[in-house]
């Protein structure tokens, strides 16, 4: 193609200038890739630490005293009929008191199928001493409570549930959620054990879910309501319970977008101004080509092609530089434990979009010079020759 060929030659003949523009675009794109990955990583980090290990959609009974009986069927229906669910488990919870001699501590006793709940709580990874409860009247305590009571693995304590009574249980394990309030409050046992403590049949008090995309929790929870189709049950999701967190995450997302738009605009302006100068530099050549009969459209295409080529090289350079920056940041910016301060989120789709934005904006920036070259008349060039 003639225009592309000429564009290449023009760029090659003023190589220094071309390299300067490509570096300019590259820096813009690399900032975009790096900031995008950084903010994406921050966001994921925040999501993980705040709602990553908790139920994002929860089904409970409308009336606290009534339990859910057909929980296995409900779970199967949810898995089969609702899209976007990552994991579904259930739990039988009751507030109670832990009694060790004369010391009493308020606790939430939680009976679970640990195989299922692991999908939400990653509970197996959080056991720091002993093991998970496996049979009746075995419990696992949080590290803080365990220490404040001065207990050892194998000790027996009492759990007291209001209106039902006391049960003697054995401490078989200690967990650490790295959150003191949870470590003080939650006491884990198996689901059958909990059903025994409460003198109940095969029931649970809540069905808990995590979703693939946390920002879709609200929509998915609406679907959950349709699928369970039971007015005695109520469905809640993390978004309605944590509006502040959501707006925080959204603010982070839009600040990232703002930075990217600002970078794109500066890249566009930079390319447009440099290319506008090249039209003047190359006006003589454009004049000769027009005298030889090149059509205005093809003359404009030369500059569009230049923008396109600059965009492609800028995108390649920018992504390499951005990934290098990200790699450097993950390798050298470490916390005291030797872990990266923030784990960056390298999203190939985001990078592809950044590249497309660079190519598109570079081509877009060349529209003004392209129009200028189309308007250039041969006479002007000859007169000023």
């Amino acid at each position, binding site marked *: 193609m*003639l225009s592309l060929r000429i564009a290449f030659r*023009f760029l090659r*003949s003023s190589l220094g200038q071309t390299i300067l523009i490509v570096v300019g675009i590259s820096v813009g794109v690399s900032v975009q890739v790096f900031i995008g990955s950084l903010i994406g990583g921050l966001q994921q980090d925040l999501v993980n630490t705040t709602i990553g290990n908790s139920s994002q959609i929860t089904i409970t009974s409308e009336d606290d005293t009534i339990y859910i009986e057909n929980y296995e069927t409900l779970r199967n229906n949810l898995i089969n009929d609702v899209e976007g669910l990552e994991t579904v488990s259930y739990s039988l919870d009751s507030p109670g008191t832990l009694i060790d001699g004369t010391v009493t501590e308020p606790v939430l006793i939680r009976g679970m199928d640990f195989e299922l709940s692991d999908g939400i709580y990653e509970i197996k990874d959080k056991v720091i001493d002993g093991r998970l409860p496996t049979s009746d009247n075995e419990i696992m305590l949080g590290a803080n409570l365990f220490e404040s009571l001065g207990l050892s693995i194998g000790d027996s304590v009492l759990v007291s549930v209001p209106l039902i009574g006391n049960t003697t249980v054995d401490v078989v394990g200690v967990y650490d959620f790295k959150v003191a309030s949870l470590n003080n409050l939650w006491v884990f046992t198996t689901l059958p054990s909990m059903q025994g403590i409460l003198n109940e049949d095969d029931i649970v008090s809540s069905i808990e879910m995590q979703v693939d995309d946390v920002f879709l929790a609200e929509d998915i929870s609406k679907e959950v309501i349709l699928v369970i189709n039971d007015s005695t049950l109520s469905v809640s999701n993390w978004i309605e319970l944590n509006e502040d967190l959501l707006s925080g995450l959204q603010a982070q997302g839009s600040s990232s977008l703002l930075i990217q738009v600002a970078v794109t605009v500066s890249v566009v302006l930079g390319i447009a101004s440099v290319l506008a100068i090249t039209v003047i530099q190359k006006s003589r050549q454009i004049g000769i080509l*027009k*005298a*030889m*009969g*090149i059509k205005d459209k093809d003359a404009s295409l030369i500059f569009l092609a230049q923008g396109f080529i600059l965009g492609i090289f800028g995108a390649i350079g920018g992504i390499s530089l951005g990934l290098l920056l990200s790699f450097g940041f993950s390798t050298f910016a470490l916390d005291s434990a030797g872990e990266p301060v923030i784990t960056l989120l390298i999203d190939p789709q985001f990078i592809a979009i950044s590249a497309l934005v660079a190519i598109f904006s570079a081509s877009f920036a060349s529209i003004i010079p392209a129009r200028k070259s189309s308007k250039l008349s041969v006479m002007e060039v*000859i007169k000023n020759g």
Partner: protein
Amino acid sequence: MANVIEMRNIDKIYGTTYQTQVLFDVNLDFEESSFNSIIGQSGSGKSTLLNIVGTLDKPTNGVVKINGISTVDMNKNQLAELRSETLGFIFQFHYLLPEFTALENVLMPIRIKKQKITKEVMDRALELMELVGLTHVKDNLATNMSGGQQQRVAIARALMSEPKIILADEPTGNLDSDTTEQVYDLLRKINKRFKTTFIIITHDRRIAEKADRIIEIKDGKVHLDIKK
């Protein structure tokens, strides 16, 4: 011989607020395969006349017909096509594309017409390079050639698309007298061989006298028109 160019009642006025009339009611015809020279002092209007013939500029009044077709009402694309098919230009400042080699410059008119560079086309380009005596520097960038060489490349380029008409505005204006002689001999040779019509603006009376016809422009009018 049939007329390949006809100019009728051509006026050219520059400017809108302060108007300067450069050409006054010029009527000229050019015959096919003729070798014409235009002389005149600077500012006489001869370059304007040539640019109007070449469709690079538009007359204020009057009609220009090339091959019997009026160019007055053609749009920019039609004019570009006409230039690419029928006209070849040689300017004083040779105007090669400095980013391309001599051979690539010669091939440029073919690329502008969006035609393939076939073996025949390439052979023709090489033949033209040989005709202008530049085979040995065909792969040099335009910037690495002398003024005379560049001018000869420009001539080869003008011939590449086999135009019926070649318009030259002081093609030897910045060349020494030996080179000037060579370039004119070359143009004459081409005129004989390809039956190409030439209209050449020159300052050099010696050169003008070698043409079949001398037209002198004075104050925007045809002052003299001598056919041999």
